[in-house]
Each structure stands twice: as structure tokens, then as C-alpha cells.
């Protein structure tokens, strides 16, 4: 067995130091060593996007990144989205617009959509579909995911938001 390496990075704002073998994949470190089970293992072959995390301002599939590559990095996972008991606009959008059914793909979807909206705060539907193409959902048919991202985008731009499913008000966590 190859000797272990200490790796330091920031995870959702907290300083982390973890001891890993070089061959350890980031998704395994997150889930098994750091109790960060929001990023899911869907395919483990870099197709499905369920394991998407934000790494230094880029969306990456954490099943295809080695933990040792994250030395000095800043990582964001779904666990870092809600602040002060308030859902992030993307979490609120996915709730209000029914952007999920089984929910397995949702952490990856939201983490990817976050980076998309950082790069393009006002995407068209076509742009959302193109730039979300690395995340698979087997339940929704994507329509409500697109609506959820549009809802979050409007809210993050400071615009009044309307939901097509006015079921939940004042959601807190």
C-alpha cells in the first residue's frame, strides 16, 4: 500500500486536513471520511453528475478527481448552501418548482446550477439545458429542474419570483 498523504483544503468554509492514499477519489473522502454525504455516487464513471461538487470555482465530478489534487483548494457541496436557517434560492427553487422526485440527483443538480448562475446570472432556457447537460435525472424529465433554476436565477438577481406551485411559504431548515 502506498503511503498516505496529508491533504488540506477548505470544505464549505471549514479548514480540513485529511490523510489519504493518492488513489483515493474525492467522492470517497467526502462521504466516508468527512461525513459529507450530500454528493452522491450514481454511476462512478463520470457520466451522471450526482457527485458534482464545486472546486475552486468550477463544477467537477468528484468521482473523477483524486483527493490529493485538492491540496489548497476551496470546495463547496450541498451542505454549504443553506445559511442561518434559510434555504439558498436554488434549494427554494427546487422545492417550489418540484425540481425533484426521488431527490438522488438533486445535490449535484443544485451544486452545478450554482456555478452556472455565477457565470451567467440570466441564462435562457436553452443555455440552462446546455450547461446542465452533465447532470442526469431519471425522474423529472428536466422541465421542473429548468423552472427551478429560472426561479433561483430571478431571486438571486433580486427580482420578484413567482412559483407555478405555490405550496410552501416561509421555508426554513
Amino acid at each position, binding site marked *: *500500500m*502506498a503511503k498516505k*498523504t496529508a491533504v488540506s483544503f477548505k470544505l464549505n468554509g471549514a479548514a480540513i486536513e485529511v490523510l489519504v*492514499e*493518492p*488513489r*483515493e*477519489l474525492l467522492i*470517497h473522502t467526502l462521504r466516508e471520511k468527512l461525513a459529507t454525504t450530500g454528493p452522491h455516487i450514481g454511476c*462512478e*464513471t*463520470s*457520466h451522471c*453528475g450526482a457527485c*458534482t461538487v464545486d472546486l475552486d470555482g*468550477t*463544477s*467537477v*465530478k468528484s*468521482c*473523477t*478527481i*483524486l483527493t*490529493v*489534487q485538492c*491540496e489548497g483548494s476551496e470546495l463547496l457541496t450541498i451542505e454549504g448552501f443553506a445559511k442561518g436557517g434559510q434555504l439558498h434560492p436554488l434549494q427554494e427553487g427546487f422545492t417550489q418548482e418540484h425540481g425533484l422526485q426521488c431527490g438522488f440527483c438533486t445535490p449535484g443538480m443544485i451544486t*452545478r446550477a450554482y456555478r*452556472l448562475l455565477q457565470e451567467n446570472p440570466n441564462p435562457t432556457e436553452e443555455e440552462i439545458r446546455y*450547461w*446542465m*447537460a*452533465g447532470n442526469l435525472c431519471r425522474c423529472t424529465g428536466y422541465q421542473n429542474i429548468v423552472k427551478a433554476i429560472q426561479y433561483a436565477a430571478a431571486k438571486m438577481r433580486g427580482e420578484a419570483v413567482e412559483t407555478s406551485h405555490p405550496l410552501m411559504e416561509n421555508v426554513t431548515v
Partner: protein
Amino acid sequence: MIPRPFEYHAPTTLPDAIALLGQYGDDAKLLAGGHSLLPMMKLRFAAPGHLIDLNKVAELRGITLEGGQVRIGSMTTENEIIFSDVLAANLPLLPEVARQISDPQVRYRGTLGGDISHGDPANDHPAVMMALDAEFVLRGPGGERIVPATAFFLGTFETALAPGEVMTQIRIPLPAPGTGASYAKLKRKTGDFATAAAAVVLRVEAGNCRDARIALTNLGPTPLLAEEAASSLLGKAVDAKTMGEAARLAMAICDPAPDLRGDEEYKIAMAGQMVERALKTALARCGA
């Protein structure tokens, strides 16, 4: 889905990377974006003893204009290509190609140099580099040499890279005024490799074709430069008849491997369609 054990190295300078490659030889692999290599290591098709990660070598990134060429560092990512103002203004074919590769997350990692050096005939940039008459800067312990794209691809996963060499830069001549280019790719779904794809670079003057280069992706053991197809257009008006003839000549050099994307006959037929489609689009762009 865990790779075999290996030692990890993250050099921050190119000389360090080359020294490590020299030290570990055949037991080492260079890690660029990792979206071909790491899946192969997870499946245990590849089991290098040493992984030399190039991601922290800053001098391998960036896009500049120099000496009538667009020069792109080998570790420049697909999304950096898509977002590049220099390329949008000077070489829009490249962002057009990058947009057709894989998916957003993979494009944040996948690099131009990795796509080329891997030697996979299914990758998209190799044929495009042949069509653009690009050249590659390779650096080893003995110094630097420049190899044209047309002499780089020797076979499936076989390139002109010698042991101990690293691809450092891709150099593409700026297209002459009146040039139009296009990449037409048929794929089954987002993220898939091409069933068939064609890169076309065309220059038209006073209604006649002055320069033409056509190259094909995933239609043989290497990317293919369709020289006869391209030269059949020279001096002629590019119209339905001459485009059809160019497509026929391009189809004649195809030797695709049958797989789940289709049998040989289908892939060759689609190669012809992609050549015609890319020619039409490139022609429409010649005046722009």
C-alpha cells in the same frame, strides 16, 4: 472503482515535470484533465506506478496571439477555450468544437493538450488540428521540437510523443481573410464521442475555392486528413455538385471500427453527410 496504488507527484514547473518523467520512465503517466486516464485506472486498464499531475504547472496554461499564430498552452481547458475572447475573435472554430465535447463538468477539467496527446481517434481536437494545419510543441530532457499535426497521429493511442516528452503548446496559424471553418459532429447524445465528424477549413476568393482542408474524426485508427477530397474543390465554385464529390472522396478513405454507434456502412455514409454539412456551414462563413 478504485485505482491500483500509485505515487502522486504535483510538480509546479515544467523542468520538474520533465525530470520526474525521466526518473520514472515507463512506470509514469502524465495526468492532465484525467477524464480519460482516471476512468481507465479505475477500471484497472491502466495501472501506472507514478502519476505526474500537470495541473499545478502554470506555464502550461493560457491563450495568446504571437507571430501570426494562436498559441494555446497544453493544459488550457475546454471551458477556457469556450470562454476565451481571443478565440472568439480570431479562431471561433475552436470554441465551436469545444462546445461539442462531453459535458460542462468534464470541460472544466479536460484539456486541449490531453485530448490531443491521448491519441484517441474518437477525440475531437485531433482532426480539427489537422484541418487547421496546427503544430505541437513537444519538450523533453534534450529540449524542444515542433511536430505538425499531420505527422503526429501514428495509430490508435500512438503519437509522435517520444518517451520523456511533454506536449507544452499548440500553435495554430491565423486563418487568412476569406476563410470559413466548421466542425460537424454526429453524436447519439450529450457527452458521447462522434459517430462521425468532419472539420472543414475553406477559403473562397471571387467565387472559387482557393484553400480547403478537410479532416475526419472517429472514422479510422487515427484522425484522417482527406487530402483528395479537399484538393478536388480547388479552383472550383463550392456548390452542391463539388461538395458531393468532396464528400464521396472523403468517404473513400474512411475505415471506421463498427461498434454500438453503427456499422461501417452507416458510419461511412454519415462521414459523407458530415463533410457536406461542414462544407456548407464553412462556405456560408467565408464572407464573414
